[in-house]
């Protein structure tokens, strides 16, 4: 897969765009339409800000030893080329003569296999942004047991915690809790859980986690054993699970992105898997309330922000079992019964070419309920006209729909599609007053639908003018960046997670099995004549 082919390398929308656009007044098109021209301009800079913000966030965590990213590049393998070795040369499109990447083969399983040069031959793509190239079973299997399996809060003190299957952070999942604050005399007490035991560094510690909503929370400390657990100020019927890997976490917190709705207020973004009529979809959700104080008081309902249909390399739907967010990355690792997929988790950018001939001074706009513009395949969008100039009622109007597959239709008010060749689609307006029109668009294809309303006006000099307003309705889908057939030992698993040391584990319902992802890439130091590889090979061959 070349650089241009990787789906994540295509242009995408940043969540910062809406945060900046929310500085506009609520009634502006720039704010309410995520694909408005204003937001298209903002998005260019927002992508850069997002990258900087993510780097700052990572660096802030790296300040603390126990939270420092264990996946930071810590080693590489160097091979010094002999003095007589010369790299080949090649001519760029600009006519410059540059070094040609050598052909490097590495011994993998006793076979010399050609490995690729990292994109742009730089360290970032060599180590951090690159995709895995192989997955193998790590030959480690452990019988799985939660530290405390699902138990009601009232009984948790009497449960003997199990031994930790994997040392590291613990994940506390709280379900069905309804009490978030208890008042005693003049003091309020908030819901919390206390864990007592030995930390991974061998100290006897106590950690108390404040519980803000029904969900999964990670401990600050890393643990080697748990001796006692108790909860405070919790509904006795609430359920608690404590485990070394967050298999109970659903949906998963997206720590790399934030949900920013049009009405303002940044919210925690959750990602989850759901099914539609075609296959699995990746669903982004966020709290209805932006105020975490309200959320802690139990108003923790979420809403669906978007859904992305997941496809395999042949553009066929998949039935996914589980996924995880790769730490410090936009990538997710996802499994079905037989394969591992690597996806970019961002909403792809819609195709906007059909919006090119939109009129500059439209007198009629199109909107959807709640300004929704992302839909899942099979859903129906209800589009409403919005007259912007009540003094000018069009004498007639027509709706034109561009489908993702390239077809064009006029649409009747009842939603019927009229082929362009058979009708002109004009609908006569009432002469005295304008009633906003609603039509329903059912979306059965993946991609961007462009709905156009063309309105015809009679001017004072009896001439006729037309105006076009457009609306994008998007049914996103994503192709995998990489896809691998799983080793037999890892097939049919129901979940995957990464532990505190950065190791990948597959869960089959009874045990966890370690998997190792390999990244077979090299970078070439042309000046010092050194080939750097990421994986440990017994030998490599290099040819100019």
């Amino acid at each position, binding site marked *: 897969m070349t650089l241009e082919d990787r789906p994540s390398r295509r242009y995408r929308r940043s969540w910062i765009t809406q945060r900046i656009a929310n500085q506009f007044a609520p009634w502006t098109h720039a704010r309410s339409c995520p694909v408005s021209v204003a937001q298209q301009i903002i998005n260019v800079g927002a992508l850069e800000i997002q990258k900087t913000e993510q780097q700052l966030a990572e660096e802030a965590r*790296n300040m603390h*030893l*126990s939270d*420092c*990213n*264990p*996946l*930071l*590049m*810590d*080693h*590489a*393998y*160097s*091979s*010094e*080329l*002999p*003095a*007589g*070795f*010369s790299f080949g040369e090649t001519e760029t499109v600009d006519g410059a003569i540059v070094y040609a990447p050598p052909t490097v083969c590495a011994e993998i399983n006793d076979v010399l296999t050609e490995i690729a040069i990292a994109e742009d031959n730089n360290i970032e793509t060599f180590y951090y942004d690159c995709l895995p190239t192989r997955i193998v079973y790590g030959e480690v299997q452990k019988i799985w047991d939660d530290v405390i399996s699902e138990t009601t809060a009232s009984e948790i003190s009497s449960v003997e915690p199990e031994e930790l299957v994997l040392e590291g952070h613990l994940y506390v999942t709280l379900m069905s809790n309804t009490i978030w604050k208890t008042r005693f005399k003049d003091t309020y007490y908030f819901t919390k859980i206390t864990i007592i035991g030995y930390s*991974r*560094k*061998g*100290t006897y510690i106590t950690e108390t986690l404040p519980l803000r909503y029904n969900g999964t929370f990670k401990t600050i400390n890393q643990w080697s054993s748990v001796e006692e657990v108790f909860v405070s100020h919790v509904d006795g019927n609430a359920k608690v699970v404590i485990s070394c890997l967050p298999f109970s976490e659903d949906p998963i917190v997206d720590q790399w992105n934030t949900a920013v709705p049009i009405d303002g207020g940044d919210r925690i973004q959750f990602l989850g898997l759901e099914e539609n009529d075609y296959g699995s979809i990746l669903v982004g959700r966020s709290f209805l309330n932006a105020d975490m104080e309200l959320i802690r008081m139990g108003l923790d309902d979420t809403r669906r922000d978007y859904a992305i249909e997941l496809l395999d390399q042949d553009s066929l739907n998949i039935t996914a079992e589980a996924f995880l967010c790769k730490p410090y990355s936009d990538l997710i690792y996802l499994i079905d019964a037989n394969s591992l997929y690597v996806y970019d988790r961002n909403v792809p950018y819609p195709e906007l070419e059909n919006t090119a001939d939109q009129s500059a001074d439209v007198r009629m706009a199109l909107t959807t309920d709640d300004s929704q513009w992302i839909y899942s395949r099979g859903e129906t969008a209800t589009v409403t006209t919005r007259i912007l100039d009540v003094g000018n009622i069009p004498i007639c109007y027509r709706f034109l729909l561009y489908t993702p597959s390239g077809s064009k239709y006029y649409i009747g008010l009842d939603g019927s599609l009229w082929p362009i060749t058979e009708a002109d689609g004009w609908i006569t307006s009432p002469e005295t007053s304008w009633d906003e029109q609603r039509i329903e668009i059912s979306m059965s294809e993946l991609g961007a639908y462009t709905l156009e309303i063309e309105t015809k006006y009679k001017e004072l000099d009896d001439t006729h003018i037309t105006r076009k307003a457009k609306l994008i309705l998007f049914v996103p889908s994503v192709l995998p960046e990489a896809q691998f057939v799983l080793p037999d030992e890892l097939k049919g698993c129901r979940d995957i997670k990464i532990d505190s*040391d*950065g190791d990948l584990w597959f869960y089959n319902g009874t045990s966890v099995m370690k998997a190792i992802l390999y990244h077979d890439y090299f970078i070439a130091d042309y000046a010092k004549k050194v*080939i750097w*590889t990421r994986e*440990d*090979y*017994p*030998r*490599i*061959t*290099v*040819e*100019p």
Partner: protein
Amino acid sequence: MSEYSIAGISFAFTVTSVGKVELVPERQNIVNRFDEHGDLLTLDRLPEEGNASFRQRMLDVTVNRGSPTYEGFINNLARELGLSKFKAITIDLVLGSDGEPLATNPRVDILASEVILYKEWNSSEDYEIDKTINIYDLGTDCYYLSDLINEINTSEYFTASLVSGVRPNLLSTCLVRGNTHRREDQEVAWADQQTRLKDTEWGTRPRTHEGSFWFSEKNVFVTEVAGEPENPGEYSIDYYNGYLVSYDIPSGTGRFGYTYGEFPYTAYASLVQLYSLQDENFTKKLFAQEVLESGEEVNALPNAEGSEIIHQLYKDTKVFWGA
């Protein structure tokens, strides 16, 4: 030129061009934020050490502290070499049919060359040793940990077991030196009440040493009695369940101290071991032992091992005999 070739440098030092070359990659550490954390703790990353292991060693700095003591040296040296100490053997007491230990004042000392099991320990001369086990010499039965455990298990008063995951053929001299003797200086006795001893668990076997108790208010704690104290100045101690009962304490509280044995005792082992030439238990392995007329045993000339070690030390310090 063969398919695989290496750079050939001719006699005239001209470099011949090469085609396909075969190379063996060499692992290199790449400095990252973990190394910066390491700099703050003066702990370097070991060659080929990954982030997770390096982080674990850095966290260990604040737990197993380095210091100029014997254990501090072990902690620091072991950590810097990536060989952290670990739990090796557990030594416990044999209980009688009444649930009480057979040894009255038990104690275990792990020394440089011996493990001493005391049946009846006392700070004065009248202690009673159950076993003295030589762990230093290659020819002895207890050179390896599994043999040491077997030997302890032949004792009437002590049992031992290997901590799971520890290699049975680890050298016994890897055991970190220590003993089961513990001292509690400042406990508070309450008037006319039972006072539970801090370091004992209710209903467990005794760990306190008989005769080791001392009291700040000697006029109140005058006579130890076996049963319930009934007169002023009387007190009783339940050495087995771990509590003290006094008849009365005028001021409301009184302070007392005692020594006790920590059982079950878990001994650590370290692949880094430290020997001191001030350690009598060690030096007697380096010198021939001569018995003086007074009966006292003293070090005479160095034996073969002693000579080798002394020469090695002089070599490294660049000081020579007679210098």
